[in-house]
Every structure is written in C-alpha cells, then in structure tokens.
C-alpha cells in the first residue's frame, strides 16, 4: 500500500500542498483531481521521492520511502507531468537506457521494448530521435518507460496529455488491467470522464488541500448531482465558467 501521511510542501514560504493524507491499496485505482496549480503534480513528485517534503511522510508497504529510495524506485512506475526524455536518443535507445539502469535482463528488455513499442504504435518510429516526436508519441515513450520493469505502484500524472482518442482508450483499459493484476495506481488527470470510468476512488485537491476523498458514486450522491463533472465543479470552481468564458471573449475581440 502506498500511503501519504500529512504531506506538506512549501516553496519560498508559499504552501503548495497542505496536510494531504491518503492511501492507495494494491489493485486499486485512485483518481487525483484538481484545477491547475492545486498541488497535484507536487504531491506526485513527493510520492515518488523526487521532491523532498517540507513535512509528512510517504510510505510503501509500511516503510518510509526516504529510507531506501532506490529500492522504492525499483517498484515504482512514474509518468511525470513534464516529459523527462533525452531527446537526442531514439525511443528504443531511451528505453534501453532505462531498462539497463533498472538492470533488466537483456533478452527480456529487448522483447519488452519491441512488444510495447508495437502495442503503442511506435515501432515504426523506434529508431527516430525523440526530438522529432509529437507530444503524444513522447507521452507514449514515457508510459512505456514507466511500465518496463513491471512496477508494483504506478503514479500517473496526466498520462493522457497529448494522446489521441485510440491511445486514450487503450490507456484507460490498461490502467484497469494493471490494477486487476495487483498494481496500486494513482491517476491524475483533467479528463473527468476517464477518471469516472477508471477509478475506484477519487481524491479532489484544491489550493493544496484535500476537499473530497470518496468513491465517484458516493460523491455524486453526497452532492446530489447528476454528473461527476457537476460534482467537481461544486468542489473546486469558484466562478461561473460560462461567465469567465464570455469575459475572455470580450477581451479577445477588444480592438480599441
């Protein structure tokens, strides 16, 4: 079980994440939602150990991950919000680098890279520089890199960004399939429909604080709303989106 206990992160005195606690069990997919700048990615980076917490603790199977981050990373698959790719390498070279650093057996590594590139529709571009890839193609490489070593826990920070419709559908089913195989999955996304269909439980964060943590159905009942989108709007939106959009359009057409 991946557990976050009272996580706090401050940047130059500004609190980005404030007292966030939750747990993701094996076989469970937990959605992590919130508007831009709410602290989702900061939480994800603290969960992976890439960002130090100001206070609080992250544990995996009861052990604090900061005690042995290398061992934890061996069981973690992480798709970050920002693409961390060596763009002068080709997709297969990058995946080989990741697999070798993870000390995967060479034959298994080659087999997995070929199969995953094929399944994600990237085999034709396997030897091209990543620099020449579209955003969606880069995102697929990131997803493959996160899955190569059969991780026990997955932290997916907007993995659907830039993906086409087919790839997004595959990703949705992939997340469910991996959870069925016992992986603990934390899934952060702005596509509410995907989250609603994929996640067992949803955590909503707003301005660094958890404002809801329950199943989609329970949240819907609690807020007495017909759709999950309405629930999300009630929890985090302070302004009327239609009014804001009209104001933006007014500014855009202003020529005086």
């Amino acid at each position, binding site marked *: 079980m991946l557990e976050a206990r009272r996580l706090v992160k401050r940047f130059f*005195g500004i609190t980005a994440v404030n007292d966030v606690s939750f747990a993701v069990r094996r076989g469970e997919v937990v959605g992590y939602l919130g508007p831009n700048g709410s602290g989702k990615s900061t939480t994800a980076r603290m969960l992976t150990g890439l960002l130090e917490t100001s206070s609080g603790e992250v544990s995996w199977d009861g052990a604090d991950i900061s005690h042995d981050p290398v061992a934890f990373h061996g069981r973690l698959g992480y798709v970050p919000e920002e693409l961390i790719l*060596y763009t002068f390498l*080709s997709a297969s070279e990058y995946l080989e680098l990741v697999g070798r650093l993870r000390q995967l057996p060479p034959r298994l590594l080659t087999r997995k890279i070929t199969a995953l590139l094929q399944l994600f529709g990237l085999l034709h571009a396997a030897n091209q520089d990543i620099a020449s890839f579209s955003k969606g193609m880069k995102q697929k490489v990131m997803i493959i890199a996160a899955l190569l070593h059969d991780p026990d826990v997955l932290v997916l920070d907007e993995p659907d960004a830039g993906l086409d419709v087919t790839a997004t559908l595959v990703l949705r089913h992939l997340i469910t399939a991996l959870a069925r195989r016992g992986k603990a999955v934390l899934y952060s996304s702005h596509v509410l429909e995907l989250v609603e269909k994929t996640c067992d439980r949803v955590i909503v964060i707003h301005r660094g604080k958890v404002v809801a943590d329950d199943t989609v159905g329970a949240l819907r009942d609690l807020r007495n709303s017909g759709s999950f989108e309405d629930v999300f709007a009630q929890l985090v939106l302070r302004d009327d989106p239609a009014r804001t959009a009209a104001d933006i359009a007014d500014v855009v057409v202003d020529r005086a």
Partner: protein
Amino acid sequence: MRDRLLVRVFLWRFLEHDLVSPDADRRGVLSAVGGALAALSLFVAILVAAPYQFSNDLPPGLTALRALDDRFLFTASSMLVLAVAAVIQWDALVLDPRDAAVLGPLPLTRGVIVRAKFTATALYAVAVLVMWNLFSTMLRFVAIPIGLHIGLAGSFKLTLAHALITGAAGLFGFLAVLGSREGLFAILGTVGFRKISAVVQAALIVGLTTSLLLLPGVSGVGEWWRAQEAVAATALPPSWFVGLHETLAGAVIDGLPRLRPARYLVRPEHEATDLYRSLWPLYHRLALIAIFAGGVVAIGTVAACVWNSRRLPSAASRPVPSDTAVRRGCRWIAMHLLARTSLQQAGFFFTLQTLSRRVSHRVAIAWASALGLALVVVAASGSQSAAGSGPIPVAVLAVQPLLVGSVMHGFRRATRLPSELGASPTFSLAWSGGGADFISGVKRAGWMVVVAPALLGLATWHTAILGPRVAALHFGVGLTMSAVLMEMTFMRCRAVPFVSANVPAVDVKLRVGGFLVALVSLSSVLACIERWSFGAVARYLSLVAFLMVLGLATAVFDRVYRSSPLRLEGEDEFLPTQRLNLAQ
C-alpha cells in the same frame, strides 16, 4: 522598433549555448567572457609593445623587420579568434528550426526575420572583433622605439593600418567559417549537412585552437618568407593581410632616414634593411591576394546565406541508421566483450551517444585535443632532427602521455556536463545502485572513442620515426599508462557522469596552469623512464607490470571508496544563493 527587438532576441540567443548553464546570469557570462577576451588581448599587446620601450636605439630596418612578426601575430590571432568565435556558435550563426517555429506564426515576413538574424550575427562578430583588437590598436604607437621619430601623422597611419588589417583579417576568419557552413548546407541540404555538421565543427575547433595555441612560437617571418621563396607566405591567409599592412603603411618606418646606429647594429641593420626591402614585391602581391580573397569569401558567404534563406528552416531529425552487419557486429562485441553487465552497457552506450550527439561534450573534447596537439607539435618540432640517430629524444616519447593526458582531461570535463539537464530525473527514477559498473561502462566507452584514436594516431607516427619495434614497445606502455590514467581520472568522482546538474566552476588560472605543469613534468619523467626501460627486456617488463599494478590498485581503491552511493543530484553542492526560509 520591431527590428531592433528581433535583433536583441537573436543576440541573447548567442548566450543560450550548451556551454552556458541555463541558470547562469547571462549578463554575468557576457561580462566574464568579454572581460577575459579584452584582458588577454591587452596582455598580448603589452607583451609585444614592451620590448620596443627597452630598445631605444633600434634602427628603422631592424624595427621594420621585427614588426613583421608582430603584424603576423596580430592578424593571425584576430583571424583565428574570430573563426573560433564563429565555430563555437556554429548552429546559432543562422536561423534554426526553433526560430522558425517561434517566429514563423507571427505577422513577420521572412525577410524581416532573416535580416534581423544576420544583423545579430554581424553585431556578434563586430563585438568579438572590437574586444580582441581594441587594445592592440590603441597601443600600436607604443610598439615603436622612442628613438624613431615617426611623428603624429606616422603614428596615426600605423594605427589606422593596424586597425584595418586586424579588422579585415578577423572578418575574413569569421566569414570563412560562416561561408563554409552555409556552403556545405547549400550543397548537401538539411539532411546531408546534419550528417557531417558535428564532425566538421569538431575538426574546425581542433584545427583552429591548435593553430591559436602555436601562434606565440612564430618568429622570423621575413627570413622565413625569403627562404621559402614566397610559397609559405602566399599559402597562409594571415600573411596576405601582413602584406596589405606593409603596402599601406610599411613606408612609415622603412622611409625613415638611416642614421648611423650603434656599432654592433651596423651590420644587422644593413642586412635587415636589405631583407625588408627585397620583400616589397611580395608585399604588393600579398596585398592583392588579401583583397581578392577577402572579396571572394565575402561574396561567397553572402551568396550562400541568401540562397539558404529562401525559406525558413524546418527541423530535420538525425537520419535513422541502417541496421548493417557491421553495426550488429560492433554491438555484439560491445555487449559481450566490452560491457557485459546491464549497468556497464548503460554507461557505455550512453557515453557513446552523448559524445557523438551533444555539441557541448564534443567541444570539451575538441578543445582538450587541440591543447594536446599543440603540445605534441611543440615537443615534436624540437626533437625531430635528433630522432634519426643516437638515443631516442625524450620529447618524442613524451608526446604520447602529453596527448593522452590532454584528451583524458577533456573527457573528464565532458562527463561532468549533463547530457540534457531536463531529462536527468530519468536516472533518479531508474537508478538501481551499482555506480561502479555504470562508471566502468563510461570509462570503457571513453577509452574507445577518445584515447584509442589518439594512441593509434601516434603509433603510426612513432612507427615512421622510431621503427616498428620501439613503436610497438612504446604503444604497449601507452596502453597501460592510459588505463592507469583513466582509473585515476574517475577515482574521486562521486557524481553520476553526464547527469549531475552542477556544472563545476573552473578556476582557469589555477587549474589549467597546474594541469599543464603537472602534465608536462609527468610526461617528461615517464618518457625518461621509458627510454631507460627500452635498454633491457626485464626493465621494460618491470615498467609495464608496475603500471598494471598501479592501475589495478587504483581500481580496487576506487571500488572500496565507491561503497558510498553515487550522488544523482547535487545535494551538498553550494547554491549561488542561500535561502533563509524565514517565512516557514
């Protein structure tokens, strides 16, 4: 207003260089580089001018002849410095696909963007030109013995001529590089140019920097021109501009009245005057070549730039390498013989990929190679005549450790530069420990692509001058010595090569000076021992065995030392600013 803004953007782009940290204060970098360039040029100008102030009785003939050496130094250095400045900015000299992607969608015509880019490039060239030549021009009138009365008009004429020829030579060097780049691009196209661009850039850096480092050793230009019957003069571009200078202002000193000098100077003055005046036809010829060559390079460069600017550039990815039998064979050898564990392979292949595809890494190694080559030329030129008979000159043997030490230093410097800063978390996430294996892969790749070519190149030369037997023995020592050096190079390395975000600050004065002294001393000592060992088989075997044991001991010590984990991020490096966290 819009044009000026664009030019300013392009000028700042010259500081967005792989060699400049993204977090660095750009104005600080600009001040430091400009200051260093100006300070070095002032130092050279004073060094050249000072002897004249202590030679008040130097007559006109000797002064004019000696001044040829100075003019050669200033024109050649101006040409080479500007050429190096152009090579360093190789891809930033013209519009790149990123410029096109950013500026293309804006309501700007192609002509406006292209004009702004070339204005920025011209301003960059002029800035470097001024920084390098300003002090030597201002101090031109000081580089004349006080005893010679050339008058205000003469001083002015000499200063103007100096400014003109150093400026023209510098622009010639800059345009030659820009023209070569654009010419190759026009001929080969985007994909073809990309294939060879890196190699051409690295070769130019090595060639130009080596020439620059060897420049202070040039003297006796007049005698050299006469001895070579003008062939050498017409073959070297700096000579053309020296000829132009003499044509424009040579008469200022040569035309001074010949008073009777001190007795010991009578004959040398007579000979110097004869020599200087015998070269007048050559000066005129060289001046014509300078004007013609300058015109050709300028027109050719402009034509190539205009031709390539017909449309904004588009991105071209690296051509996909074909999976040939040779490639598969090399890969098999690498994976089964050179780097057998996964981490060794990670280090090995990542090193090869970084060195072959990242400009900053290539530049680091190219500069070190240039330094090594300069040392080799200096050492070899002094000993070549003695190599034919008698004992082997120490300098001939010292060439090997000099070159290997230099390229090894460049390799170490390259490993300390991050391959791509933004992607470094890849290592944090995928790192599974075993830093020693990873570094072992890095060392093996470095040895293969940096050290082995240097050793093999020297072995060919040594075979020619020392014979196959001694060359083979020397090569054997070189092999073991390079293995020891490689182990020592990484002995105290705790940061993961090519990953650490902390680009080490180099105290150039201290480190380069100390490195050169240590390198030259140790190379000479090793060469002496080596020469002694060639006298008997037992001695030679003892030397090789000693080096092998030393290498092994270093490796074992390093393994023990490396029991502490490698540092992926620079957690205990000093930050440029210290946060007090008072608000927390």
